[in-house]
């Protein structure tokens, strides 16, 4: 199925959890902040929340800053 990730269209496995999908992109879910359809997820929800066709994910993380 197709979903939108940081504004880009990506292919995701049907019913993949947020944690699974983030891992398949090569990122450690523990270090990623996730918004799913505009809602901030707590880290404990990553394994429980599943992606749906057309959903929008924002993946954010800490970078260097002053």
């Amino acid at each position: 199925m197709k979903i939108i990730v940081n504004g880009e269209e990506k292919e995701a496995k049907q019913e993949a959890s947020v944690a699974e999908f983030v891992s398949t992109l090569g990122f450690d879910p523990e270090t990623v902040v996730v918004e799913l359809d505009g809602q901030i997820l707590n880290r404990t929800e990553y394994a429980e929340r599943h992606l749906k066709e057309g959903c929008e994910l924002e993946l954010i993380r800490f970078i260097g800053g002053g």
Partner: protein
Amino acid sequence: MLTIAGKTFSSRLFTGTGKFSSANVMRQALLASESEMVTVALRRIDLNDPEDDIMQVLDRTKFFFLPNTAGARNANEAVRLAKLSRASGGGNWVKLEVTPDPRTLLPDPVDTLLAAEELVKDGFIVLPYINADPILALRLQDVGTAAVMPLAAPIGTNRGLITRYQIEIIITQAQVPVVVDAGLGAPSHAALAMEMGADAVLVNTAIAVAGDPVQMANAFRLGVIAGREAFLAGLGVANDEAQASSPQTGLDFIR
């Protein structure tokens, strides 16, 4: 020891993590600085670069992370960034920055106060980045911020304490720690801020872009210690006229 919101820090030098040439140089510089508090920013992930991860470089048991809201142009954006940070496990501390003008990066006092009020009510430990405005510092203290962070000079300018006299007023009035932030370009600038009685300083650019960032981090560490020691020791009074160090009596034998 410096205490902010009940947390104690041995080091009064806070260090930013931006602009370093590599993650390894940043890590070495932060270790040399002996900083315990380091600032970080939140940004959208570059999906093509999984390796670019500050969390894998810095040991969070060694460094206390102070996430900032850099990039926020108004109160709403700052609050959203703070909430994202907290949700990510970044804790409830936030360096509140609201900078609507990318040319000056000067903070918006009105939106900073609005965001501070909202974040404090929501349980955040708020350290607001502000212009060196003594009245605003009091207003922020009144709404419950854990510190105030007046700028020495605009971010990244390395110009030193051009707001010196306003910062002196802020220090005199403050009931919360005063962290001089932004624009400190040399260890002597940091030392001066500490001599004036600042509780801590935050430095990023001056260390990150130095010829040798690791050596400069150590230099800032020493500057902050020197300034703090001088403040505690009590500086001598400045005089307009010379005051002889050697006795002016007992010179009859050469007259």
